[in-house]
């Protein structure tokens, strides 16, 4: 460790394999917060300290500290859970986490508003149904996402099993999580080691996705590490491996940028874990530990060069990459409604706005999912678009499930394509990084866009719109056909030119617009799109053909208007 390394590196090193002083922070009654160092360590245990930013000043005036609460994100590889697990997840949300939960863009669920003294109960609660939150956040491999493809059930099973194995293989080995939250025992003897991570873990977060073409709902190119399943006659034959994708950027800093993952090559299934581990350890050893803004794998690859990086990974994994197979993606959204799988089971994709489930006294999505989980015997799959699939429903139960879904407003019917495909991040008031509104404002924005589209005779333009409160990219905005990225209160950068299937980054079109400016620009764009588009031409493709934005030559061009 040199003097110039980022302070977080010292915190990790001193934490004694992620213990820190969490225990002391938890029993400190005087504050709802953790000690500053523990707020870094807690992320590895799956939770983050947040506070209601709307309340900060008022509370300070009242001699009260900020309204601290915690966001806890579970690990749920591939987003699959059983109805029994769902009922437990739901109950904990209602009792211990401000009566709500959220489905995330990484196929997991997260709770907001957990008070410090309830963290232990939440973690113990999910543990009772065999779910943990290890690495929900922090500088380790995060929840592994995987296409929930319900149709090809045996292929999904096979691929999903790999997602789980990758997740398990890349889990931290420290017993800190169990010690602190579960059995409380410190196992005697033996120095603890992290064979993959070492005592300072990774320089930054690390995201892994598994895609099953032709669906790119996981936005595989937005991940540090991606596995694209190659199947033959419904059986998995291997993966195309891609690496170095990532969304985050800093406004005005051209050394930071969103980036699509590069192909490394094709591997056989039994090489998967070795390759995953090799990519992780290469990033561990070559990643930037001085500047967290440049610590993601994408910058490591930019610095090393793709060929050198690929060679290093191959050497460490003891394999050779074959030439990547040809793949074709057709979409990045979810397919709503019923579909029938090859095994004759039915699968219903529900629509959940912003993945947000709130316990309301009346019927609502949260209650609806609870009712469904009570009668359902298959499984439930959270999608990377924050929706939920009720999977493996026998013909005989279709009507009952559909009835419940309709009653509780869980069906996509009646929602426009625009709405079904949109994603917004949480942003204000909870997220400490947010510079502008996102989730709270998004439904209004979509109303406005729909109104404008109608004016130009576009009944339901199915463009992919995403919105984030800051440039870090939780809703993967840089892959949308149209994106708004928060710049300051009420101000956004307008991005255009994604391809609607998640394989092309968009580009800055207008900077720092207020609401009126945004709507004027969108109005004009939709007008031109309505008048000039070719048949079947998507909005993102149109703006590029029309020369409104250029396709990007280098990632750092994101910032250029």
């Amino acid at each position, binding site marked *: 460790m040199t003097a110039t390394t980022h302070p977080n590196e010292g915190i990790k090193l001193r934490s004694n394999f992620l213990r820190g002083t969490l225990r002391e922070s938890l029993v400190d*009654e*005087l*504050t*709802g917060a953790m000690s500053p160092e523990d707020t870094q360590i807690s992320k590895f245990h799956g939770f983050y300290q947040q506070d209601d930013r709307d309340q900060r000043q008022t*509370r*300070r*005036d*009242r*001699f*009260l*500290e900020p*309204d601290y609460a915690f966001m806890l994100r579970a690990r749920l590889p591939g987003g699959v859970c059983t109805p029994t697990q769902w009922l437990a997840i739901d109950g904990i949300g209602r009792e211990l986490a401000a009566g709500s939960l959220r489905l995330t863009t990484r196929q997991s669920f997260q709770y907001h508003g957990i*008070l410090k*003294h309830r963290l232990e109960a939440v973690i113990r609660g999910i543990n009772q149904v065999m779910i943990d939150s290890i690495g929900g956040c922090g500088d380790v491999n995060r929840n592994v996402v995987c296409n929930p493809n319900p149709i090809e059930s045996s292929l999904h099973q096979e691929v999903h099993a790999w997602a789980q194995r990758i997740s398990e293989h890349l889990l931290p080995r420290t017993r800190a999580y169990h010690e602190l939250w579960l059995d409380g025992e410190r196992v005697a003897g033996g120095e603890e080691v992290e064979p993959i991570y070492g005592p300072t873990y990774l320089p930054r977060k690390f995201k892994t996705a598994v895609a099953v073409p032709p669906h790119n709902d996981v936005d595989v190119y937005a991940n540090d590490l991606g596995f694209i399943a190659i199947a033959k006659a419904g059986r998995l034959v291997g993966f195309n491996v891609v690496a170095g994708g990532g969304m985050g950027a800093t406004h005005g800093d051209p050394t930071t940028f969103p980036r699509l993952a590069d192909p490394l090559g094709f591997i056989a299934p039994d090489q998967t874990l070795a390759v995953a581990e090799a990519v992780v350890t290469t990033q561990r050893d070559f990643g930037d530990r001085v500047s967290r803004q440049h610590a993601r794998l994408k910058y490591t690859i930019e610095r090393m060069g793709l060929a050198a990086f690929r060679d290093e990974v191959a050497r460490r994994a003891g394999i050779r990459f074959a030439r990547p197979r040809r793949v074709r993606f057709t979409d990045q959204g979810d397919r709503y409604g019923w579909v029938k799988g090859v095994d004759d089971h039915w699968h219903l994709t529900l629509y959940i706005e912003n993945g947000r489930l709130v316990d309301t006294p009346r019927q609502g999505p949260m209650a609806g999912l609870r009712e469904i989980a009570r009668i359902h015997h298959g499984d439930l799959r959270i999608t990377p678009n924050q929706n939920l699939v009720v999977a493996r429903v026998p013909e005989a139960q279709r009507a009952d499930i559909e009835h419940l879904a309709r009653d509780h407003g869980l069906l996509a019917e009646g929602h426009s394509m625009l709405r079904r495909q949109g994603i917004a991040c949480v942003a204000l008031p909870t997220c400490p990084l947010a510079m502008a509104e996102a989730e709270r404002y998004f439904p209004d924005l979509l109303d406005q866009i729909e109104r404008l589209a109608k004016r130009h005779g576009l009944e339901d333009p199915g463009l992919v719109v995403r919105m984030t409160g800051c440039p870090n990219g939780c809703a993967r905005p840089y892959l949308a056909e149209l994106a708004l990225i928060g710049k300051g209160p009420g101000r956004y950068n307008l991005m255009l030119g994604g391809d609607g299937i998640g394989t092309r980054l968009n580009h800055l079109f207008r900077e720092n617009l207020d609401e009126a400016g945004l709507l004027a620009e969108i109005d004009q764009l939709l007008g031109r799109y309505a008048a000039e588009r070719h048949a079947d031409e998507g909005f993102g493709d149109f703006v590029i053909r029309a020369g409104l934005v250029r396709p990007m030559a280098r990632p750092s061009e994101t910032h250029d208007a």
Partner: protein
Amino acid sequence: MALPQRNPVTSPFDEPQWRAVQSLLEDLSPAQMAWVSGYLAGLARVEPAPAAEPPAAEPITILYGSQTGNAKSVAERLGARALEQGLAASVLGMADYHPRKLAKERWVLLVVSTHGEGEPPENAHALHSFVHDAQAPRLERLRYAVLALGDSSYEHFCRTGQEFDQRLADLGAQRLMPLQCCDLDFQAEAKRWSDGALERLSELTTRRASNVVALPGLYRPAPRAHDRDNPFAATLLENRQITTADAIADVRHLALEIDPRAVRFQPGDALGVWFRNDPNLVAVLLDQLGLDGDSPVRLDDEESSLHQALSERLELTRLHPKTLSGWAPRASGPDLAELAADGARVRDWIATRQFIDLVTAYPAAIEAQDLAALLPPLTPRLYSIASSQAAFEDEVHLTVSLVRSATAGAERLGGATGFLCERLARGASVGVYVVENPGFRLPEDGSTPVILIGAGTGVAPYRAFLQQRAAHGDSGRNWLIFGNRHFRRDFLYQLDWLGHRDAGRLNRVSLAFSRDGAERRYVQHRLRDEGTELYRWLEEGAHLYVCGGTAMGQAVHAALLEAIAAAAGRDAAAASDYVDNLRHDGRYHRDLY
């Protein structure tokens, strides 16, 4: 008291002597100072010693048991007058008096208030239990009189005074005068009783030329000190809510500007606040009763308009049982008469209602003067001071919970809290005076550990304590045990406590938020949980403070006994002795209301 600087040229003292004089005088009240100056003047005159001693004047002891300072002020005034008349009177707080001396006394006057649910005030505890003990000595020599202060809206009106009066008689002592009970408007009756007592003592005791010289003007030093009858006009600087909008209680932090030369207080002291009734309430009342606000009324031989009397002189928001029983015959219908006849129901009824509710529920006609006579006089309210002059010399901070109820359908605000929190504008002035609370002071030695137990606004004096300890750089450890309803909504002064802890001053904190968990937990539960640590602190000499409601004080007391018994491995009687010793050593301080 602010003492003048020593002038090195003209002063008869050298520096060490002057420091000694200063330290002696520092904590004296104006009346004590006046007495000392007379005493010293007398000493200086007694030379050379006369050949034959005049017959010794018989000592007269005036004891007060006081919570809010009223009994103390009556006793001090009485003592000063006795001295003026050449009686050898000394005035003592009951806690400063050695109970066994009682058996040797001949002349004792007691002025004592009753507290909460018929309990003796904090500083009367030891004497009260001494005389009530089965082993109490016979007091055949003793002649005494008791002045009892109380509030007749409580069930056990003047009970402590009655108990002293009866018990001393049972022990063989003789009354000089019958027991006198006084209600909230005690001034006139207390004066009459004092006159009578002085007259009786002048007749019966040996008097002599006093060896204390009465120095004219010194009993009323000019400018006159600010007290209940001569309040200081403080200016409101700040009024902010310190609980969240969704909290059950609306608690305000008020900062008042004072002149530090005119108003001095110590952490633990209270501030008496004169308030004005809500002008809307007065208007509604006049309207409902069909009375003209300009009608003249007489109050204590002073004439004023009815409007002014209702605004500034008469109690409108605390409904008194006497008001209810006086109203009953005027109102038609049997309901009210029936209610008025049942004491328990009356207390229940008035607990959540104001005079306007009575008038609305049972309309009746009344003349202006009769109304003025029916309503009790407005009395100032006391609030524990939440700041130290070592930190804010020219400010007084108060922590006030706005009383707001809607029992009778309409929203009613508390008289004083409504005035302070809702009607007093920033920059406007309010009459205040300091009420000393000598039984609730920080230990003199700054290295002594303290345990501070408070619930709700009972935490106010501890803010003052810690400000003072911070300003003085005291090294003593501090342990705060605080309870309220919700951590996020009403953790009063949380940022202050965090700041003190970051500065290494708040060494331990135990909290109980009753509505946060499934079961209701209060400070007394924390005390039981942490009995071992509590006992360790006490064994290390810690002082224990309890501030809050009476019920909380009782619960804490019970928990304290249990915790000590458990931690020390002793029985209940031994734990009780232990706590009695704490009290006796001046290490168990309570401020309950």
